[in-house]
C-alpha cells in the first residue's frame, strides 16, 4: 500500500514525487514506457530557472535521478485503470494507494482514422521538425490551421518537393505572419474546407483521400491539429471539462483522495515551471489529506 501513487513522469509528476518523498510518504511513480513528458522532444529549454540552456532529455533525467535518490521508485509501466477501491492497475501489477496524483499531461490530437496509428513512423508523423528530413524532395501533406501547422508547412516547403496544407475551414487561426507566408509560397498547395477521409497504404503510407474525393499521393502525412489531455484513465472518475481535470489552486479534484498536477489540469498557463509548481501543490495537498485521514 502506497501513501501516494503518481501517474505520469513529466515535470509535474516527478516534482510531486520529490515533495511527497520529502514529506515522508511512501511514494511510487507509474511513469509509462517513456520517462518524461512532452519536454523530452525539446532540444533547448531556455526558460527553466537555473538552466540557461538544457535539453528536455537532460532536464528530465536530472529530476528523475533526484527522485530516485529520495528512494522513490519510477516504474516504466503504463497505468491501464484506476479502480474505485483505490488501485492503479498496469499490465502486470496492481498498486494500492491512499492518495493519487494524476499528472498524465497532454497528447497529440489525432484525426481518429484507421491506419493513423499503424502508420505512425511509417509515413504518418506528429513532428515535422523531427521527421521532415526523411521526406526531403518528396510530396507530403500537413493537416491543421494553427500556428504549428503553418509553421511546419513552411518548414516542410523548404525541404520537400510539394506540401499540401489541408484545413477543414477556409480561414486559418494562425497568426497573419504565417498565413501571408503560406499564401506566398509556391510549393504549398492549399486544400481548404477539406478533411482527410482515409489514410491509404499496405505497410506504409501511400496516399490519402480527402472528403471531396480527391486522392493525394504522398509519402508523408503530418498531423498538427493541437493537443488534448490524456484523459482516458480518469474521465469517468473525476469532474472534467473537455478532458481537463477541474481543479483549483490546491490541485484538488472532485474526489477527495485524488489530486492533479500539470497540463491535464484545467488552467490557463501550461509551462514547465507551472507544471513543477502544480506538482509541489498537489503533493502538499495530498500530504494534508493523508494527515487528516490518519
Amino acid at each position, binding site marked *: 500500500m502506497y501513501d501516494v501513487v503518481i501517474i505520469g513522469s513529466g515535470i509535474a509528476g516527478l516534482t510531486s514525487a520529490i515533495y511527497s518523498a520529502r514529506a515522508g510518504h511512501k511514494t511510487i511513480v507509474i511513469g509509462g*514506457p*517513456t*520517462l*518524461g513528458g512532452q519536454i*523530452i*522532444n*525539446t*532540444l533547448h529549454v531556455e526558460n527553466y530557472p537555473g538552466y540557461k540552456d538544457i*535539453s*528536455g*532529455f537532460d532536464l528530465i533525467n536530472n529530476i528523475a535521478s533526484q527522485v530516485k535518490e529520495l528512494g522513490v521508485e519510477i516504474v*516504466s509501466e503504463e497505468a491501464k485503470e484506476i479502480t474505485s477501491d483505490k488501485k492503479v492497475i498496469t499490465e502486470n501489477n496492481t498498486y494500492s494507494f491512499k492518495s493519487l496524483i494524476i499528472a498524465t499531461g497532454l497528447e497529440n490530437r489525432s484525426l481518429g482514422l484507421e491506419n493513423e496509428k499503424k502508420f*505512425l*513512423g*511509417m*509515413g504518418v*508523423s506528429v*513532428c515535422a521538425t*523531427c*521527421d521532415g*528530413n*526523411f*521526406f*526531403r524532395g518528396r510530396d507530403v501533406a500537413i493537416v491543421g490551421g494553427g500556428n504549428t501547422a503553418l509553421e511546419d508547412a513552411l518548414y516542410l516547403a523548404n525541404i520537400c518537393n510539394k506540401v499540401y496544407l489541408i484545413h477543414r475551414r477556409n480561414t486559418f487561426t494562425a497568426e497573419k505572419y504565417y498565413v501571408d507566408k503560406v499564401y506566398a509560397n509556391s510549393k504549398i498547395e492549399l486544400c481548404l474546407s477539406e478533411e482527410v477521409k482515409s489514410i491509404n497504404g499496405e505497410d*506504409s503510407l501511400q496516399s490519402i483521400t480527402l472528403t471531396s474525393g480527391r486522392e493525394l499521393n504522398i*509519402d*508523408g502525412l503530418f498531423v498538427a491539429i493541437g493537443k488534448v489531455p490524456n484523459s482516458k484513465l480518469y474521465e469517468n472518475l473525476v469532474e472534467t471539462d473537455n478532458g481537463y481535470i477541474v481543479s483549483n489552486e490546491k490541485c484538488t479534484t472532485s474526489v477527495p483522495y485524488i489530486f492533479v498536477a500539470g497540463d491535464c489540469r484545467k488552467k490557463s498557463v501550461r509551462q514547465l515551471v507551472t507544471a513543477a509548481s502544480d506538482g509541489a501543490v498537489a503533493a502538499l495537498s495530498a500530504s494534508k489529506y493523508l494527515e487528516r485521514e490518519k
Partner: protein
Amino acid sequence: MVVLNKDNFDTEITNSKGVALVDFYADWCGPCKMLGPVLEEVEKETDAKLCKVNVDEEIDLARKFGVMSIPCLVIFKDGEQVNKSVGLKSKSEVLDLIK
C-alpha cells in the same frame, strides 16, 4: 556497438551472416537517447550484432531502409532486411525483435 556509415555498411551488414540490429538515431532525439542504455543491456544478452547509424550524417542510408521517424530499429538476417520497429522499446521488446 558498431558505428555504421555508407562506407562500411555493406561489409558489416549486407555481406555479413547472422542477425544484426541497426539503430537509426540522432543526437537531438530524446527517445533515441533513452533507447541507448536499453540497447547496451541487450548487447550483453545476445549474439546478434548491434550497430548504429546517425541519421544526420547518413540520411541516404536512413532513406534506403525506409526510415521515416526515429528511433527506428531495422533488423537484418544474412544481409536481408527482415523487420523494422519505430519508437522507444523496452529490453524485452528489443530481444523479441532479434530472436
